[in-house]
């Protein structure tokens, strides 16, 4: 101890008049740092209500609640996160994980309110002063808790692909499938969008856990065509996928395919539910497409004896005759159908209902009838010269390709139309060595075909001619036919509606083709239905209840014939519902 120890402490006085660091609120204000984690903000338009924030919140401070004026729709649950600031710890994991990136935080320090309930609110819906705050916590650049990119699917290179009908998509390996399945947040927004409401989060979890047995069981709960749907489904689920709101959607379709591909058909019997004991009831199904066979599968499970009448020499309907082999190889389809048959479903191939096998006789001999004959008749071009021998119908071309017949399309082919049949016909023609033009009356973005199919058709070498309105087909001296079209421009006629094509006067083009494939839509073939059958129709469609029941007793109908979506998965949904309806009609519980 020395003298310094007595004098030094007085040095504190030198700081007595320094300005204190304290903020005298409300006289002084000190804004939060630009990254400050203050109260939440939510861009409710961007938010899809997936509830991933709720799932990651370790305090259970977030609850997804309905909000006024917001309805559930495809890809949006209609719910929005409500935050309880009695529980929130401002960790911002919800912001970090938010798939759409809609959640962020303001840099607001203080909020005082006498009402404790005020501290539970729905950001973005219940207006707060900081809603417009520019600063506050947001995910840093390059930082994401979820993987935005999907696991790339191995595909045949395009140059290779057009040389054969080999399957384009190779399928995921186990490692790839598990990695892709890991991207799913199990929000279930997809389930509502799937026409059959498959348990998508459930089977993706099964992939993640390597439990394919459970996966297959979940698939068959609502869909007996996992091999086919795993390849060619229109995957509305992926459009709804919450991960897709801020990156690539989870490859739900490929994961379904992965499960079905991995399990041998011979093991299906041990994994999937067995049929109930026989009820002694008989059901006839007309048309062995995905809808008819789905109805047959669920009816057979319920113990009914099902006989399917198929006009063609093989079962599968449009899956077989409308979808080319490179998208859906026949062995995969045969696997799905094989399992349905193994439950005792009898498929009478080459047995067209019509003269000799009337609907009335089926109604007499069976306890119920399900009509699922689809839309086999192609629409004509309805322009002068459309009966020219070079004008072919797209569905017939695809069916002939399935049967292995020589197509004789020639070297230069035009495909008229913008749907999936048009793309399939074009790509089939490419595989037959032709050069292909696809002519469509509107723009590429207006095409009803799957965008991936359009992209692949283009990549394989098809030329897309947009805004081409067919005028005439003329005979060509050099052989084939000349296709004449009028160039169009898109005109916004009505506010809020999609623009319509309008011909440009004088802009007439023509081109010679060896074949012109018309693929502009199809209609039903119901010549076997007579007036005596008493099935009420509207615009050539049988009128049906939710379960597919027509006005004629014990006759049900479904599939493309009836629904608007006209895809396999909707036909499967109709078939499943009809099976439940028929079971109820026959005295069962419908499940």
């Amino acid at each position, binding site marked *: 101890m020395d003298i310094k120890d007595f004098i030094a402490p007085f040095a504190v006085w030198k700081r007595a008049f320094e300005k204190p660091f304290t903020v005298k609120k409300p006289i002084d204000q000190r804004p*939060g*740092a630009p990254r400050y984690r203050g109260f939440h903000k939510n861009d409710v338009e961007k938010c899809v209500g997936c509830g991933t924030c709720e799932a990651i919140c370790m305090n259970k401070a977030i609850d997804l609640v309905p909000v006024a004026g917001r309805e559930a729709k495809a890809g949006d649950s209609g719910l929005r996160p409500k935050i309880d600031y009695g529980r929130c*710890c401002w960790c911002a994991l919800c912001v970090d994980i938010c798939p759409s990136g809609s959640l962020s935080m303001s840099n607001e320090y203080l909020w005082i309110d006498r009402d404790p309930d005020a501290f539970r609110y729905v950001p973005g819906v219940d207006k707060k002063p900081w809603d417009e705050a520019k600063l506050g916590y947001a995910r840093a650049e390059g930082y994401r808790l979820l993987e935005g990119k999907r696991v790339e699917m191995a595909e045949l290179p395009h140059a290779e692909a057009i040389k054969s009908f080999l399957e384009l998509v190779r399928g995921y390996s186990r490692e790839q499938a598990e990695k892709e399945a890991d991207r799913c947040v199990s929000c279930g927004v997809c389930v509502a969008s799937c026409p059959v409401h498959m348990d998508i989060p459930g089977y993706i979890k099964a992939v993640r856990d390597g439990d394919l047995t459970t996966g297959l069981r979940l698939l068959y709960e609502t869909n007996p065509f996992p091999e086919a749907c795993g390849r060619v489904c229109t995957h509305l689920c992926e459009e709804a996928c919450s991960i897709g709101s801020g990156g690539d959607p989870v490859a739900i379709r490929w994961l379904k395919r992965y499960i079905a591909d991995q399990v041998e058909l011979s093991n299906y019997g041990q994994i999937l539910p067995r049929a109930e004991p026989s009820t002694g009831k008989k059901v006839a199904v007309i048309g062995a497409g995905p809808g008819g066979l789905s109805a047959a599968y669920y009816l057979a499970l319920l113990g009914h004896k099902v006989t399917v009448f198929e006009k063609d020499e093989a079962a599968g309907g449009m899956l077989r005759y409308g979808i080319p082999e490179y998208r859906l190889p026949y062995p995969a389809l045969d696997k799905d159908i094989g399992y349905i048959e193994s439950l005792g479903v009898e498929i009478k191939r080459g047995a067209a209902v019509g003269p000799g096998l009337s609907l009335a006789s089926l109604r007499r001999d069976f306890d119920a009838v399900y009509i699922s004959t689809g839309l086999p008749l192609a629409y004509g071009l309805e322009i002068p010269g459309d009966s020219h021998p070079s004008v072919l119908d797209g569905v017939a071309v695809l069916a002939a390709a399935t049967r292995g017949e020589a197509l004789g399309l020639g070297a230069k082919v035009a495909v008229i139309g913008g749907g999936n049949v048009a793309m399939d016909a074009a790509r089939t023609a490419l595989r037959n060595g032709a050069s292909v033009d696809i002519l469509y009356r509107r723009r590429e973005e207006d095409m009803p075909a799957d965008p991936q199919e359009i992209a692949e058709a283009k990549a394989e070498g098809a030329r897309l001619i947009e805004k081409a309105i067919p005028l005439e087909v003329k005979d060509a001296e050099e052989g084939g036919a000349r296709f004449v079209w009028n160039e169009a421009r898109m005109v916004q006629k009505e506010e809020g509606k999609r623009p319509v094509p309008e011909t440009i006067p004088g802009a007439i083009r023509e081109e010679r083709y060896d074949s012109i494939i018309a693929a502009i839509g199809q209609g039903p073939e119901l010549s076997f239905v007579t007036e005596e059958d008493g099935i009420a129709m509207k615009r050539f469609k049988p009128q049906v209840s939710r379960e597919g029941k027509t006005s004629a007793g014990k006759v049900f109908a479904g599939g493309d014939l009836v629904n608007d979506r006209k895809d396999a998965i909707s036909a499967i949904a109709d078939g499943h519902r009809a099976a439940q309806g028929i079971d109820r009609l026959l005295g069962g519980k419908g499940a």
Partner: protein
Amino acid sequence: MKREKTHIIPPAERASPDLSSGKYLVMWQGPQHPGITGNMSLRLVAEGDTVVDCETHVGYLHRGFEKLMERRLWMQNFPLVCRIAVPEPDFNEYCYAAAIEELAGIQIPEKAVWLRTLSLEMMRLASFLMWIGGQAGAFGHGTIIQWSVTMRDYVLDLFEELTGGRIYHMYIIPGGVRSDVPKGFLRHVLEVLNVVEKNLDDIELVMFHNAIFKLRAEGLGYIPKEWIDQYGITGPNARAAGVARDLRKDWGYLAYPKLDFEIILGTKSDAYERSRLRLLEMYQCINLLRQIIDAMPKEGSFKEKLPNPLHWKIPAGETYVAAECTRGEYGFYVVSDGSDKPRRVTVRGPSYTHAVSVMERLARGTNIADIAGLMVSLHTYPPEIER
């Protein structure tokens, strides 16, 4: 004026005073008491003004973190762990993240290594600044805390700028850190370091050259060298006894092997020596921060890609990861059974030893007025005793 300090080594056995004799006074210090540095309490038995027995009581702050963690996903625990030691959350974040990374075999990017080191050293400085105010205050010197808490607030401002939070930074996330430094941040750090350094000079002058502080702190709470291993004493408490124990050197984690520093050692092992050693470590901390800012890579990723946190399963295994915090060895023992939640997490806070066993023993024979000063000189945080 010379005053010889003799070290009293309290007996290992507890006294059993006859409380009905009327000779003793039983009194409670805490759980709400500034000299306790948190919510715990001491039951003191005094004879006159000398403490003859001390019993520590914990449980006022039990939040069950270790059990809570078993019910939460690996990633969900990341905002939870920081709360285990309130004034020094980053060490929890680091140990937890590093344990997961070790179990899952994840290598974090170089940039993240440096950013973690930066954040831990900033935390050390902030924590020491809070402690030094408490230490001076415990001996009746109220000015220091006003200075040091202001300095700490400057550091917390930096944390707010870097991480978005002042107290719970939640910055060190499994796989790296949550963000790169914002623009101009490193310059701000250097500015703050200059201010803090100047302040430390003032503190050194008025606190360590202060007759009262010296009189009360010298010889108080002497920890013999043999106790270090017996009690598992770590950090400045061990180093003040001359035991060179510092995980930053011994284990060489994060960027510490690339930094130039020596372990600071003391000899006298009393409250004054421990305080002085911590002051020197604050200067060392400032020096380390300057080195980090110099050497840190300017570019590069700050976070490794991880699996989806909602389904993340950590391979079965167990590990112990520790870091040198201001009070000594701070460790996380983590066991995974291969599922998406930890099977068991045990947190080793240095305060467990320092504030319970060591404190109980050192209190015996101490003047009752010095108990607060003694407690603070061990630099303990009760929250980390009760996990």
